[in-house]
């Protein structure tokens, strides 16, 4: 049989998850330059303005193109690109040539020195072997200082050391964690050409950090180079105020070139106008999200230091940006520090204002196409923080991704922030969706080999089984769907056990744009379950099982208040047939007698007494669930009330009110810090379940006591079947490593209502009607392993269960 099963694999491409892209060495510098753009933002042009002459100067700045690149697609790598670009890039060029170069030129210089530095040689050789020997020795005597322009433009130098030398303080900084090292894209161990090193120097000189910067190259005995960057840091007048302004969507101030030939007066006028402009800019700017606490910290930082230095500004920038990024404002950037040389430092921030939201559909090849899905369906899944006017937050993006994914309409979803070319610092949120096929069908077959006589399978015992599933999703683009499946374990005689389910789902019955979220569902179903009502108590031999077959139709409306809390109400029409082991309809339960016979006068299985009940009733269920995960442990409370209300329609005119109230509390016993990898808190779970029925109660609707979801330590229904039920449980969960251990105490009671079930199945099968248990267990992935002791017999047993008890 043909199997056409389009397996859709959902891939979530949130950009931050993208691996760092490999870059070629040539654009490595520029790429890093872009990614480290924020550093290069304070391009403080020292040539024009000496600290003393330029008061109140907005020292600038960045260009529009750079900013666009930075906040756009590349901003991702901002977080992730940790690999030295040289290393990744160097693989591109041929390794053979490099090896030769070293052997040839390095042979002379290094050969001699190698006698003295043989360990280094060995080290170098090792590295050569490791990195594929792609760098050239400098070919110069060791330990001499060379001018940068005396290096060969053809060679590929390896840099083994980078040292910053502060001329003002006369101190050397070689600590790699120093913020200055972020400035250089060169990395220790990297391999660069002369041009790259020169470009680096230019970048450093133009970045604004330094008043003056020089680069000295020292030759090392092993053929590598040591770079000494000597610098004088830019400093400004000390400040004791900090102001943060939001300059997003504001045009950048243009750097007006000052004519060097201006007179003093003209200069003064120029500065004045600059100052005025800047004031206006501050006034026009909007306020920031940055909270007072961070501002205070910055102010203290400023006050504790004397002069405002470049490194200080760098720290401030890091601090501000870190706060933004920690809050998920991934597009926020400190673009500039203005108003330097006054008492106030003005930090200009682009927060990442969303200017536009665009939703695109892609076909299988990734081309943009027209989508079948109505846009409002997607719109309503987007958090309002993703709409224009808000600040882009990565968490909102993730939320949107999750929400859209929960629609189950798309095979691929991407949520990307993209810089808006039209307005500076603006972000366009781009959502790319690949739709799943609307219609799908699946046929699967299987052979069941049933052991025949003497345990050997015979030809006749091989049964072909199979299932047919079809699905029509997203009808009219409104996420309506029809799903049907038919399964049989014996295709030759499918009437034996044909299970089917057809379901029609119609979401947004109040309209797609209405915030009320109600979904209509209609389904046809059948099911076959063994009734736990007809189960023997302890000491009763095997009780012949009773199967409850249900065939019916169900229509209900679900209103979702939150993701977890919902209210469902609807109508159920069903036919219930009770069958014995031989699949023939039976009317009464049976129990084996000590003599070996069967007592057939057990409780009636159905209300009508014929073994077949037909009835219609209304069903409602309201769930309130505010549980959440605290480091993987569930905390909160969950209440559920379920009601089956008989309408007097059906066999014997059943009129009943069957209700259940479940209350579960997950109480966190210890406050813990939230975060990934942090241990979950110990949790106390209190659970109570009350069920009751007034009116007609057929045996299959009686509440059963005992079982993994009732009173653990007993079999399903081992304690009784009753009209009213009360279960109480306390469970203590203690986290141990990645999982948790738990201890529990449970009690279930029929409240003396077993006799109110017709035929008293509890007594007929010699059950007690109540029971307690206690035990301990461990959660192993999906499986619960528990040792439970039941108080009636006092014996314990080890159980393995799937899923959660609560």
């Amino acid at each position, binding site marked *: 049989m043909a199997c056409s099963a389009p397996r859709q694999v959902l891939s979530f491409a949130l950009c931050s998850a993208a691996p760092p892209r490999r870059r070629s060495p040539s654009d490595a510098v520029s790429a890093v330059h872009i990614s480290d753009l924020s550093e290069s933002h304070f391009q403080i042009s020292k040539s024009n303005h000496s600290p003393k002459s330029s008061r109140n100067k907005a020292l600038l700045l960045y260009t529009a193109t750079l900013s666009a690149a930075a906040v756009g697609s590349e901003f991702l790598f901002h977080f992730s690109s940790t690999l030295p670009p040289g290393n990744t890039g160097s693989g591109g060029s041929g390794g053979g040539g490099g090896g030769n170069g070293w052997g040839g030129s390095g042979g002379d210089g290094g050969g001699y020195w190698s006698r003295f530095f043989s360990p280094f040689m060995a080290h170098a050789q090792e590295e050569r072997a490791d990195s594929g020997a792609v760098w050239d020795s400098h070919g110069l005597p060791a330990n001499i200082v060379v001018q940068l322009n005396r290096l060969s433009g053809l060679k590929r130098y390896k840099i083994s050391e980078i040292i910053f030398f502060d001329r003002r303080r006369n101190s050397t900084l070689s600590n790699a964690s120093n913020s200055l090292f972020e400035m250089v894209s060169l990395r220790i161990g990297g391999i660069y050409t002369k041009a790259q090193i020169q470009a680096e120097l230019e970048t450093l000189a133009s970045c604004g950090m330094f008043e003056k910067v020089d680069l000295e190259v020292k030759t090392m005995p092993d053929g590598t180079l040591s770079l000494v960057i000597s610098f004088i840091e830019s400093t400004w007048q000390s400040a004791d105020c900090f*102001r*943060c*302004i939001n300059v997003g969507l504001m045009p950048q101030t243009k750097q007006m070139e000052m004519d060097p030939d201006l007179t003093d007066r003209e200069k003064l006028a120029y500065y004045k106008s600059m100052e005025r402009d800047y004031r206006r800019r501050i006034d026009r700017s*909007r*306020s*920031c*999200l*940055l*909270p007072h606490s961070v*501002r205070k910290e910055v102010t203290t930082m400023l006050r504790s230091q004397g002069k405002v230095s470049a490194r200080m500004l760098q720290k401030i920038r890091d601090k501000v940006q870190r706060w933004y990024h920690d*809050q*998920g*404002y991934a597009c926020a950037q400190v673009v500039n520090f203005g108003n330097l040389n006054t008492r106030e430092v003005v930090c200009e921030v682009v927060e990442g204002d969303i200017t536009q939201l665009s939703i695109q559909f892609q076909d299988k090849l990734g081309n943009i196409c027209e989508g079948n899905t109505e846009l409002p369906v997607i719109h309503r899944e987007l*958090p309002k*923080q993703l709409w224009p006017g*808000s*600040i882009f*937050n990565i*968490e*909102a993006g993730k*939320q949107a991704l999750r929400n859209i994914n929960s629609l189950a309409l798309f095979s691929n979803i991407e949520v990307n922030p993209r810089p808006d070319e039209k307005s500076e610092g603006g972000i366009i949120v781009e959502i790319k969706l690949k739709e799943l096929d609307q219609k799908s069908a699946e046929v699967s077959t299987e052979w069941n080999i049933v052991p025949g006589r003497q345990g050997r399978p015979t030809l006749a015992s091989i049964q072909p089984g199979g299932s047919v599933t079809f699905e029509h999703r997203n009808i009219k683009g409104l996420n309506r769907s029809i799903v049907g499946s038919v399964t049989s374990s014996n295709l030759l005689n499918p009437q034996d056990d044909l299970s089917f389910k057809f379901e029609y789902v119609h979401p947004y019955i109040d309209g797609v744009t209405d915030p009320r979220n109600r979904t209509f569902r209609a389904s046809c179903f059948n099911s076959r379950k063994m009734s736990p009502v007809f189960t023997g108590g302890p000491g009763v031999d095997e009780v012949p099982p009773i199967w409850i077959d249900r065939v019916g139709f169900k229509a209900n409306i679900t209103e979702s*208040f*939150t993701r977890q*809390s919902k*209210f469902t109400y609807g109508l159920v029409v069903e036919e219930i047939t009770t069958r014995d082991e031989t699949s023939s309809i039976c009317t009464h339960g049976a129990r084996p*007698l*000590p*003599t*070996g*016979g*069967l*007592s*057939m*006068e057990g409780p009636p299985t159905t*209300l009508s007494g014929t073994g077949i009940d037909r009835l219609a009733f209304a069903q*409602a269920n*309201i769930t*309130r669930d*505010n549980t959440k995960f605290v480091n993987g442990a569930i905390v909160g409370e969950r*209440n559920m*009330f379920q*009601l089956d*209300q008989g309408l007097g329609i059906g066999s014997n005119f059943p*009129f*009943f*009110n069957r*209700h259940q*109230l479940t209350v579960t509390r997950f109480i966190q016993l210890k406050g813990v810090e939230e975060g990934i990898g942090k241990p979950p808190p110990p949790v106390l779970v209190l659970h109570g379940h009350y069920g009751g029925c*007034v*009116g*007609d*109660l057929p045996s299959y609707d009686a509440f059963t006591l005992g079982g993994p979801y009732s009173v653990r330590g007993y079999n399903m229904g081992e304690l009784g079947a009753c*009209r009213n039920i009360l279960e109480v449980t306390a469970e203590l969960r203690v986290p141990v490593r990645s999982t948790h251990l738990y201890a529990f105490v449970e009690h279930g009671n029929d409240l003396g209502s077993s*006799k*109110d*079930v*017709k035929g008293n199945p509890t*007594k*007929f099968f*010699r059950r007690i009607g109540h029971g307690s248990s206690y035990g301990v267990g461990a959660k192993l992935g999906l499986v619960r392993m528990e040792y439970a002791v039941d108080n009636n017999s006092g014996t314990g047993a080890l159980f393995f269960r799937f899923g959660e008890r609560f």
Partner: protein
Amino acid sequence: MKFTVGHLINKGGTLRWASSLANRARGGFRLHRLIPVPIATTASFLLPHPSATWKRFFFLRLVSWLCLFNFLTEKMAVLGFVHMAFQAAREWHGIQQFPAATQTKLIELLAKLKQENVSTLTILVMGKGGVGKSSTVNSILGERVATVSAFQSEGLRPIICSRARAGFILNIIDTPGIVEGGYVNEQAIGIIKRFLLNKTIDVLLYVDRLDAYRMDTLDKQVLNDITGIFGKRIWNRALVVLTHAQLSPPDGLNYDDFVERRSQALLKYVRLGARITKLEYQKIDIPVVLVENSGRCKTNNNGEKILPNGVAWIPSLVETIINVVISGGESIRVDQKLIDGPNPNNRGKLFIPLILAFQYFFLVKSIQRAIRNDVMNENKPLWERPVERFDDE
């Protein structure tokens, strides 16, 4: 499929004898001959395997008995005696076997009853297995109506013995023990219930042994089930009979003390098993009577069987019974409703609309409110909260 009819054999045997005797006594043979064969065969079809000939015989007898029964019932229905449907009683010859003193006493007592306008007395004997129910019945009637076997349980069929004496009819219903394998046997109870259908019970004798020292939950269960059949009011018309009364109590106790303690223990269990509250219990006075059925029972000068305390127990028992009948409220008529018990499915049905309204207004609404609160108080992550912007001072 095995059917439990096989178990009826023993008691059935008893009945066979009883009925054939009865037939013979009033010319039942003739009636038997009149029975057309097809009816018998039809009747036998009702049973799964009526293979054994004696079984067939039994059924033929049964059918004949039923025919007689029907005949009489019809007659009596005309006369307005329907509820005395099983009055096909024969003369109480057994009474003649009692010593003269006992006879006098009994006749006196019956006369007393007659004065109270009671002409029928139906006694139901119940209890666990092997406590001496059948023996007690035999003792009271002075005849061997119920087979007594020392080691074997007698099966599951109750029997009724009716005796007439001087226009007074005494019915005694002997039931099988209702305990099986440490549990109450619902099947036996079911059979007893059906047997008692449309009969009127005047007195219940709950039989247990005097020489049993301990009571346990099983006793409670048994008593609970008996109460379940008839309702609590049966205990207004009940007496507790303790058999094997001729015993020497354990060391250090005198006989009366022992009896007192034993009866108190038993009565306590009656109270617990029947779920009678202490208040109700004060109104109910359940007499305890001692019985010794053994042939070796001591006799007094008049030849009456006496207990260790010198009481002639048969007249005493009958006297207590009659006292209960006279004083203890209404007799209990067993009808279908009583057998089925109150239908739990109908209880509270009228209140369902009220319950529903309560559920809607108090439960559903309050949960909805709680959900609304949850939505409002949700601890949202920072980014989801309304944006707070800070202006510099």
